[in-house]
């Protein structure tokens, strides 16, 4: 079997993340990294939609929230064991899959604006339900719950999340490189033409939305366990915005980009909230992200990874003297509608 450069770097990075806690077991660092991994999973799931299929969803928080609440409610109401936790992850994924399937089937026929708006409304609906259904969710106040004993130790949870991240990364990587993934890219590039080639594009868009929903639910489950607390904030627009920001800044349609984006954004949030103690303007760090995000969409639509890739291709083609351009770069303008 041929081992590629990508595989080597994947294992190197994974190995160093495994070793890291033994070198530096700073609690803050472990918590921050756990957080980055969780949002990395969320951002990768968003990338399946935005980057690979070209769908803008404003309701991704819905699936994150489903996972978060399923885990929280099951651990609280039933039993705080590892089995229960794993069961809650699966249950959350099942619900998220069902709902993304139904919502997708109903809404993915619509044009991008309407889809974006409808997902916004659907996730708004979930938020309302979570706020009103106080007997289970305790509304806006939320509730705390006990984590399984094995995760009392932050390190074990760190490893668990890291394992999830690695598995999801490999799974999604295979997914986007599978025949189905290729068709998703074709849909992104030109839906009309893909349709005229005889593909039922709705079918493929629904698949993308189900995959994204399931993975987002996993991120939600991990998130609520990491806090041992859940409230309605897991269903708010902020979560969707985080995912968007990470995906765009890291680089849409690259999978690695959103991971990197999650690192950048989470770290920046951490650092800026530290700065905010001295300089109050940093309390509004979201503005900086907002402006950064707008600038990224305008001038830097490929994100960090995408842009690096472009540079790499240019460099290589200059060196080799061939003019082959990189295949299927994301964010091509929609021309035919």
């Amino acid at each position, binding site marked *: 079997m041929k081992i590629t450069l990508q595989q080597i770097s994947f294992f190197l990075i994974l190995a160093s993340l495994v070793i890291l806690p033994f070198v530096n077991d700073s609690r803050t660092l472990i918590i921050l990294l756990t957080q980055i991994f969780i949002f990395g999973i969320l951002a990768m799931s968003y990338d399946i939609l935005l980057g690979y299929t070209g769908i803008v969803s404003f309701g991704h928080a819905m699936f994150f929230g489903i996972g978060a609440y399923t885990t929280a409610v099951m651990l609280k109401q039933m039993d705080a064991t590892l089995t229960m936790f794993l069961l809650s992850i699966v249950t959350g994924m099942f619900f998220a899959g069902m709902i993304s399937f139904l919502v997708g089937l*109903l809404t993915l026929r619509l044009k991008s604006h309407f889809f974006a708006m409808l997902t916004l409304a659907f996730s708004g609906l979930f938020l309302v339900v979570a706020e009103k259904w106080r007997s289970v969710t305790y509304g806006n106040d939320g509730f705390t719950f006990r984590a399984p004993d094995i995760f009392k130790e932050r390190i074990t949870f760190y490893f668990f999340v890291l394992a999830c991240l690695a598995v999801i990364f490999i799974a999604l990587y295979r997914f986007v490189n599978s025949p189905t993934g290729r068709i998703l890219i074709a849909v992104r590039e030109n839906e009309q033409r893909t349709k005229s080639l005889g593909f039922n594009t709705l079918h493929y868009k629904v698949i993308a939305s189900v995959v994204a929903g399931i993975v987002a639910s996993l991120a939600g489950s991990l998130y609520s366990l990491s806090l041992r607390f859940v409230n309605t904030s897991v269903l708010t627009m902020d979560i969707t915005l985080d995912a968007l920001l990470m995906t765009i800044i890291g680089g849409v349609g690259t999978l690695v980009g959103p991971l990197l984006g999650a690192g950048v954004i989470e770290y920046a949030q951490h650092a800026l909230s530290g700065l905010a103690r001295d300089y109050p303007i940093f309390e509004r760090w979201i503005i900086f992200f907002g402006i950064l995000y707008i600038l990224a969409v305008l001038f830097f*639509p490929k994100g960090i990874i995408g842009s690096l890739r472009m540079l790499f291709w240019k460099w290589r083609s200059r060196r080799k003297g061939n003019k082959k351009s990189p295949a299927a770069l994301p964010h091509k303008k929609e021309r035919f509608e």
Partner: protein
Amino acid sequence: MELMVNLMINGLATGMLIFLLAAGLTLIFGLMDVLNFAHGGLFVWGAYAGIFTYMYTESFLIGILGAIGTGALLGLITEKLIITPVYGNHIQQILITLGLMLVLQEMIKVVFGPNGVPVKTPSYLAGSWEIGDVIIIKYRLFIIVVGFVIFGIFQYMLKRTKIGLIVRAGVQDKDMAQALGIHIKQVFLYVFMVGAALAALSGMLMAPYSGVIYAEMGMEYAILGFIVVVIGGMGSFSGSLLAAILVGLAGSFMAYYVPVLSLAVNMILMAIVLIFRPQGLFTMRKERST
């Protein structure tokens, strides 16, 4: 009876405010094919700029003018800096206008402080009239009147003036309008500014009605605006008036009879309309699902 009338007036007043917000959205969409997710930001900026002007000058009217001016100015900047560069690319439009929404909302907190600001109704609009058993709150009636007046003015402009003709022609066929010598991008800019000014006016008028203004109100009402635009039919001006009244009334009656459902009812309504009648309830125009 008394209850009915009050709920009706409530619903109408809310409906009118949503209409002002949605009118801009629908015109911008119809003409430019841009769904402006930052519209709520213009709304909340109108509210803050207007109310602070009002508190400073102690004149509600100047406050209103301040709101309209702020809206138009923000509209100008938004169109030039944010919308024009991504013209024709839907995905970028959606992403960038949402980003702008976020920035506008957070800027409110930086400029005016993060906490809500209580707002008083100007004395001449405060209080109520009693007609028999029915108590009519003056300010609500005021909103309804303003809403209808603005609807009337716009309807007249759209139907009877050359500018209105050009806008309507542009909504239907941009290329042909240009081929007849109309500088459509200029028209886009003006329509965007007018739409932004309407959103700002809506925010300003909403302020005394809700009694408090806060940064997040932009997104909350923008969602109602989207719902109205969808129900009324994208690009349809009178459709959005009808839809806004429907949404306002539904909200007001639901809030009284089935409060649990009051927030959800509009979203469900919109989902149903989008799925089964995506061209909107009140239009018979072209298809728009792909």
